[in-house]
Structure formats: C-alpha cells, structure tokens
C-alpha cells in the first residue's frame, strides 16, 4: 500500500536498511525497506510475495469437498477458520441447515484455536522483549491447549473439524472430560499471564506507547480483529454478524483506546480467557443429535459471502459455483491482509529496536496474506 513519508528520504541523514525477509518476528518471510533517520524510522516500504503459492487458482481445480481440505492448509494458526468460512459459504448456496450439535462443535473448535493462537502471539512478544523466561512459560501454558487439540481432534494444528454440512468430529464422555480439565488448567494460568503483562516493568517499558495506531488511522486502514479493537474500533464478527450459535454465547467484545502494542496484547489475553467461557457454555448446553447432515451435500450454481471471526479478525470468503463440482471462483481475504498497511502508521517515528515488536503486534500471517 502507499507508504507514508515522514522525513525526506533523500536527505543525507537517512540510511536505508533492509528488515527481513526472514526473521522479522516470525519465521515467515516479509521484506521491509526502512529508511532510518538517526535512530528513528522515517519511511516504511513493504515488499510481499515470497510465499505466494497460487492457492486461489488451485481451489478452482478442486471439488468443493476437496477444498475443505485445501483451505485448512492455507494457514496453521487460524487453520480452522478457513474451512469454517468456506463451508458456511457453500451451505448458504446449497441452503444446507447445519444440525444444532454441529454448530456447537464448530464454536468449540474455533475457540480452542483462538486460545492457542493468542497465547502464541503473546509468547512471541515476550521473546522479542527479551524476557525469554516468560516466553517459555507462556509457550508451556499454550502446550495445554496443544495437548487438548491432539487429544480431542487427533492433531495439534489442523483440526479437521469442519465439513460442508456440519462438524467432522464428535465429543464423547472421555474427550469432554479432557476438554473440561484442560480448560480448568488453562484459566488460572491465563489469568496469571494477564496479570504479568499488566504489571511487569520489562513488558510495559517496551510495549506501552509503542507502535500506536490512532482510531482514525485504524478506520482508514480497515484493520480488523484485536488490532482494530485495541484502537477503539468496536467490531467483532461474532457479535456484529452472528453465525453458528454465537448469538447464545457469552462473547465479550472488549476495546481499548490507546492503540499501542501493549493494548493489542491485552485484548488477545482477554479474548483467550473469554474463549474459555464460551467453550464451557457450549459444553454445558451441548444438544444431542447428529453432528452433520450426513450425505454428500448438493451445492448448486450460486454465489455467497461468508464471514467468521478468526483469531486475527474478520475472515471473509466469496464462493461462486457453476454447474461443475469445482468452484467457478473462490476468493478469501484474511485479517492480516488488512493489517499490514497499518504498520506504516504504527512505525512512524518508531525506534529501530522496536520494529520487530511492532510487526509482531499485528500477529502477522504471511502465508495467509499471499496465498
């Protein structure tokens, strides 16, 4: 997107440094060309495309059923959200009504992923701050969520929980007990981590008033998810456009006004804790019955948009089907795609040392962005 110039990049005092493409914050490639004036960022240029794989083209060569598998592999941290939104679009075209139990199971899968995803991002923040003891502690707590996923879904990242017409898994007494005991372990740990991030001097010094995104810039950039909510944009797909059974769930949409790195981390920790309440509500009110519609669902020619709240924010899918089993067009936009542009505002006059912390604070997903 257009880059924001603060100082004259041609002035002799500016130097250009490459940041990336590897190891900016995560092990995914994104290349920043940053002009530095003294110790401050003067200009940010973003060069993308290192992991462009042409998945949208590939999707038009796969049947709808195969695309459930393909879309889950676009991203690892929000893997479940992709087939979820894709299936919702297909169900909209086909007029398929997901059974109640299937809707609850979909919410459980989505919220389990949210806990793990947010803890991962917050852990990386501690690592970038240089507080590696905290990093390892948060990753260890996240491991409870990883074990939970492995126990309930059979896999630590790709859950395979979604199919067109419902959920692809079911809970029995044993897995429900595992889920509940894992939540009981996670909840106090996350509350403790939240307290640490709220009070620890090392965290606060490196994250407060760093990478600020003003509310008006957040709206102009169209940012979504925790990045938007930390800048006072009161929007969450689960509340604004409820799907599955989110209208019956205790979804607490929290916003903050400061728009700094710390606010984004605190929003994520709050949402991880809220996700636990949502999963508990699901388990308490889980109806009996089928988990999906059973037979291979029929999806005629048509078009639909579907949205879901992935851990990083609004995920939107557009599906257009024709007479064949393959989609005529399948297009999606991940939350990170919107959030990159905001980095040019967040890095305005930032210290060089804070670049990685700021990049991590949008919880970037490059493989999602470039597809």
């Amino acid at each position, binding site marked *: 997107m257009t880059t924001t110039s603060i100082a004259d990049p041609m002035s002799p005092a500016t130097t250009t440094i490459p940041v990336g493409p590897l190891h900016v914050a995560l092990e995914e490639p994104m290349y920043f060309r940053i002009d530095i004036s003294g110790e401050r960022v003067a200009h940010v240029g973003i060069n993308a495309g290192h992991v462009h794989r042409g998945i949208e083209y590939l999707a038009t060569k796969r049947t709808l059923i195969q695309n459930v598998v393909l879309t889950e592999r676009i991203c690892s941290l929000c893997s479940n959200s992709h087939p979820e939104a894709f299936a919702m679009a297909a169900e909209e075209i086909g007029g398929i009504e997901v059974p109640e139990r299937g809707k609850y199971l979909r919410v459980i899968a989505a919220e389990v992923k949210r806990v793990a995803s947010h803890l991962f991002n917050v852990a990386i923040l501690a690592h970038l701050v240089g507080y590696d003891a905290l990093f390892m502690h948060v990753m260890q707590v996240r491991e409870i969520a990883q074990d939970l996923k492995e126990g309930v879904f059979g896999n630590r990242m790709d859950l395979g929980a979604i199919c067109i017409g419902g959920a692809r898994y079911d809970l029995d007494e044993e897995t429900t007990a595992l889920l509940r005991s894992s939540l009981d372990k996670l909840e106090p740990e996350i509350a403790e981590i939240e307290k640490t991030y709220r009070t620890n001097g090392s965290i606060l010094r490196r994250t407060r008033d760093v990478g600020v995104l003003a509310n008006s810039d957040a709206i102009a950039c169209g940012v979504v998810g925790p990045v938007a909510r930390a800048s006072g944009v009161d929007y969450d797909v689960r509340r604004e456009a409820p799907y599955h059974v989110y209208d019956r769930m205790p979804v607490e949409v929290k916003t903050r006004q400061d728009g700094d790195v710390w606010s984004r981390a605190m929003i994520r920790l709050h949402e991880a804790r809220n996700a636990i309440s949502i999963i508990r509500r699901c388990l308490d009110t889980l109806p009996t019955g089928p988990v999906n519609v059973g037979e291979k669902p029929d999806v005629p020619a048509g078009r639909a948009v579907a949205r879901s709240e992935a851990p990083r924010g609004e995920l939107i899918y557009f599906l257009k089907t024709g007479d064949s089993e393959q989609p005529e067009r399948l297009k999606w*936009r991940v939350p990170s*795609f919107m959030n990159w542009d905001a980095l040019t505002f967040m890095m305005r006059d930032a210290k060089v040392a804070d670049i990685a912390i700021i990049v991590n604070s949008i919880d970037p997903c490059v493989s999602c962005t470039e597809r």
Partner: protein
Amino acid sequence: MSRIPDDIETRLRAAAPSGISYEQKTDPLGVTVAWCELANKDELLAIAECLARCGARLSMITGSQPPAPPEVEAEESETDAGDGVAEAASPEPTLSFGGTPLDGTAYELDYHFDLAGDALTVVALVAQGSSIASLTPVYRTADWPEREIMELYGLRIVGHPDPRRLFLDKSIEPAVLERLIPFSTLTNATSTSDLWSKVMEAGKEASQ
C-alpha cells in the same frame, strides 16, 4: 458504523442513474446480505462514495473472468431443422444485466462492503479491453486488492496511485490467470536466474 439503511436501494439508484439490479436477504439472526449489480461500470465511483457516506467499510475485492454460459442451441437446431437462417448466424454471446457480453473474456469485479455486520457486494462487469476506475480515492483499503487484481488479470484499473506488482515479481509476464502456465515454468518462477546460472556454471565445470 451503521447497518444497511432501509432506503439503501433508493440511495444506490440515485448514485447510479443507468440502473442497478438489487437484491437482499436477512437471515434469522438479523444479518442482511445484499447484492447490487451495476448496469454501467463507470458509475462505480459514485456508488462507492454513496456507500462511504453510509459508513461502509471496503472488506475485499474479487476479480474473476466468469465463463461463458453454456450454449443451449444444440437441441433447438434439431427441432428447427428448416430454419437455415438461425443456424447460419454465429451465436451471439449472452449479455449481462448491464449489456456486457459474457463471452468468457469479460471481467467481473465484486466489491464486498461491510456495514456494521451487514454485507453488501457491488458487482461490476468490464468488457475485455476496457478499464475500470480505482476505488483508492474513496477507500485506502482498495490499494492492495486492486494491485493484486492487476497482476492476475489483464484488466486496467485507472487512477491507482501505486500500480506496482503486489505479490508477483515484475519479471513475470502479466495476466497469469488468463493463460495456461506449465507447472515447471510456474515453479521455476520461484527461483531467481542467479540460481540457474550458478547451476549451469557448476555443470560446465563438472563436464570439463
């Protein structure tokens, strides 16, 4: 942010005097999904300005080349065997609502807007060889999606402030989604020529 206003259709019709085809549906949870197809793609900017005044957020832009609808003439020609004139005439391509020929080369652009949870998609069809206005003067968020569409298709988007490639390298021939690319060519595209020149040199040295 506010949801789709009740008089949205009137407002959109006022912004697009050439006409629109509008439909909307509200689900049991109160979420409205609306579709607005433009008769004239040149009225897109006026529609976008109208939606911006309603507080809409541009969420995504999809570019595609819809295939030509299947011909249904085979059966008819048998029954009307005596009608030589109809048979001789070349099949006219089906026209879109706005009169764009749907011959498989026209572009369809879908602009997906969000109004506080409601979804409104504006559909514009652009004939091959024609162009469409950039939405960047109204929406900053149109920047990346339009750059991506310009590198995937041969469509020209007029008025984009920064029409560089987004994901694909500038050495790659344009309009990648409009032609068949052999898989080996596709995968070679991920390596620079530096790598291959090194491989060739190494090969020469080994053979000497």
